């Protein structure tokens, strides 16, 4: 069966009555590079948070294959997220007390997968994949922003999830590093991963397989 995430009639209303997402219906299938475009405040990040189980919708249903995410407990969601979703943040959000290699090993440890040696081996493989194997023993502060973001991608891949959620992953990088990140995502998609990326950039969106345009909490275009 092909892995997929299905969003049906998703609504998100905040305490102050603001409707951030309005009747969203989307389907994400394995092996696609998807861009979510839209102006600030249109609901892009909220949409990503709901897909990744970080936030819950006020109404509607999210299905991961046969699994309904909206009814899962926080604990179940955490377990599910660790196994199926990799997250890449705009500001990298690496743990500053751990080396680059340890940052990549951390999700494996949290989810109790592999033994210690295998974790190290897998983490090194991932760093090689994102071309920063030489940074393994360095601390996050001592490497460049681009290298930090590649570390964050390696960390997102640590549990070999099918879906990578990236919130403005190039927003804090120069164009050269942004290109490296995008080509890395394309490589991952070729390997069968799905990357859902929020961006402001039409240019970067041009590299994706599918563009979802949002405005005022609604899907304006889904091509």
């Amino acid at each position, binding site marked *: 069966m092909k892995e997929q995430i299905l969003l049906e009639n998703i609504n998100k209303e905040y305490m102050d009555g603001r409707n951030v997402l309005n009747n969203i219906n989307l389907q994400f299938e394995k092996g696609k590079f998807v861009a979510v475009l839209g102006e600030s405040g249109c609901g892009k990040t909220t949409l990503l*948070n709901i897909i*990744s189980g*970080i*936030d819950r919708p006020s109404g509607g249903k999210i299905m991961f294959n046969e699994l309904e995410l909206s009814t899962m407990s926080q*604990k179940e969601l*955490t*377990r599910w*997220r*660790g*196994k199926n979703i990799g*997250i890449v*943040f705009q*500001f*990298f*959000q*690496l*743990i*500053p*007390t*751990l*080396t680059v290699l*340890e940052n990549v*090993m*951390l*999700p494996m*440890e*949290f*989810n109790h997968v592999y033994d*210690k040696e295998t974790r190290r081996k897998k983490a090194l493989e991932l760093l090689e994949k994102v071309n920063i194997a030489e940074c393994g023993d360095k*601390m*996050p*502060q001592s490497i460049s922003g681009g290298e930090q973001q590649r570390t964050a991608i390696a*960390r*997102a891949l*640590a*549990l070999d999830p099918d879906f990578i959620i990236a919130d403005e992953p190039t927003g804090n990088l120069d164009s050269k590093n942004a290109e490296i990140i995008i080509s890395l995502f394309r490589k991952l998609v070729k390997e069968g991963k799905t990357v859902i990326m929020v961006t402001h950039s039409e240019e970067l969106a041009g590299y994706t397989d599918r563009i979802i345009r949002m405005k005022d909490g609604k899907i304006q275009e889904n091509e």
Partner: protein
Amino acid sequence: MNIRLRKILEDVFSDLTKTLLVVLTIFIGTFSFSTILNSYIITDREMDKSYQATDPYNFVLTVNGFDADFVKNVENIDNVKQVEPRKTEMVQTDANGNLFETEIYVIDNFEDIKICTFDIPDKDIIPGTYEALIESSSCTVANNHKGDTITIRKDGMDYKLLIKGEIKADGTDPAWMHDRIYLYINRETAKRLNIDNNYYNILFTVKNPELTENTIQSVRDLLEKNGYEIMGIYINEKNEHPNASQMNSIIFLFEFFGILSVVLSAILIVNVISSILKKQTKQMAVMRSFGAGDGQITGMYVLFVVIIAGFSTIIAVFLGKAASKLFSSVIASLLVFSIVDYELPVWAYVAESFVGTVIPVLVSLIPVRKSLKITVDKGLRDYGTTDNRIRGYKLFSKIKNTKVQMGIKNALRTPKRLISSMITIMIGGAILMSSVNLRASLEKTYSDILDAYTFDAQIILKDEYPDEFFEDVLNTEDIESITNIKVKYNEKMQPENVQLIYDNSKNISVLNIKYRQGTNIQEAYLKSISRLEGKTGVLKSNTVMNAEDIYNKHLLTISSFLTFASFLVILVGVISLISICGISLAERQREIGVMRAIGGKNRDIYKIVVYENLFISILSLFLALLMSMPITHLSTDLFGKLFLGGALSKTVSFSGILIWTAVSLMIPVIVSVVNAVRLNKIPVKNMLSYE
């Protein structure tokens, strides 16, 4: 409302937990200082005031066969202000077979007590024949109160006296501490009790204390010219309350703990304010980016501290006053003096307000100035977790357990705060352990003293007798040995805190009796007394067992006081421990959000946080243990000199170490779990948000 002021008020209420922590920190420091300073002012002033109000004597002449009516002849001697004869007799009170040392004062005229006075609240309680007044702190010794009949044992005879009333006699030795009873009777009752006129005390006050020696000589000449034999002369040179030396040691501790609590609280304030400002780094950078000057920003945060400190200070000063009232009255009751006036001078309020507001403002300038050193650019890029410097990470990277490794590295992320927090936690722990060690050292010293006794009971007789006398009188199978020591009467009867400048007293026998093994010492002791009383007068007597009771009461007083004084410092230490655990966690909220986003479960987060806080507290525990050693050394020397006139046997108590270890292990775990549970309830998306 001024926008800047509104921002400050918003900041006060936006992170209520931290605001409350600052309030609590300033409150504890100011409250401790206020309680200690007020108690110091009240007790120091009132002890002397209440003692001077009793019109204490300047000197005492002890004469044999004195006729109280002769007093009028010495009243007109130059420089004599007041004269009052007051015979003191040592007897024993028999309460259910137990004997209590009892000091009876024969008062010439209860309606005209001139020297060493005490208040008689109601004329109806003035004792008549076979009646007595009891000093109020003696009431608990043999459980005798107004209206009860007390049995006096003198020279083998029992006399029953009705207690007509209770009086407070400031300046007497604490009865409860010595297991002693003080009674006041009139001359008629003294006659019925066969109290003789030997060793009669004549109390004098003088107009000019500088001429006391001349006055003593004139009185002595007159008495000798009239055929009186002077047995002893005491002079009250210090003219201070008999318990003044104990008070001085308490005052020393007041000063020590007062300063300590202010210093610890100041360190804690710097830590808490730093953590608050950490969150404000970006806001500061934003304000500076549109033209706010360093002075304006400093002013805003100083105002923030002033608002919080002002609020805390008002409560602390108010509660400190109430606590000091309570604490002073406990000290007054322990050391037997009255507090008439609890009023505090204006300078005390000024000093407390200074400690509560100016010190927090001054110390808060340290983190504020430090925050302002961060460039606008760096401040704007501050996302909380990426800019920390790690110390010694390479060493800790070798730890195989990642959660332990992360916990320890997290603890080392803010080295300055770690050090200052550890200092406060360490001092709290060291004070606790030292207090417990001091108590154990006192216990050990008392136990050594008791072990050194080679006898079971001591009986002091009114006269001197040869050894053979006791062989006849005390010839019982219970006794293993008797040692008969000859000492001067005045040596055993000299009041505390005065100097004996002339001693003509006779020798008396002090018997140290060792009973055979297996003998019921209390019964054998009573039998010995009863046999002696048939033949001679007993001045004082006691068993080593009773002495042990008295030592225990000393111990109880010292340790109660120590517990109270050290409690405040320990409290600051504990709050420090709580705050460091809470602050570090609150600061890393976003980092925890990231861990949860990448699959970290609640128990993973708990573990990291618990390891971090345990690392800090265990490190502090070891340092506290090291620090407690010199403190124990110094405090045992000080207390030994003050209370026993020599060094104490230094003892390290494991109970102190155990208590602080339990505190050091439990608090981080509890605080970490409570905070982690709280943080885990915050949605991940909120934790990840940048603003």
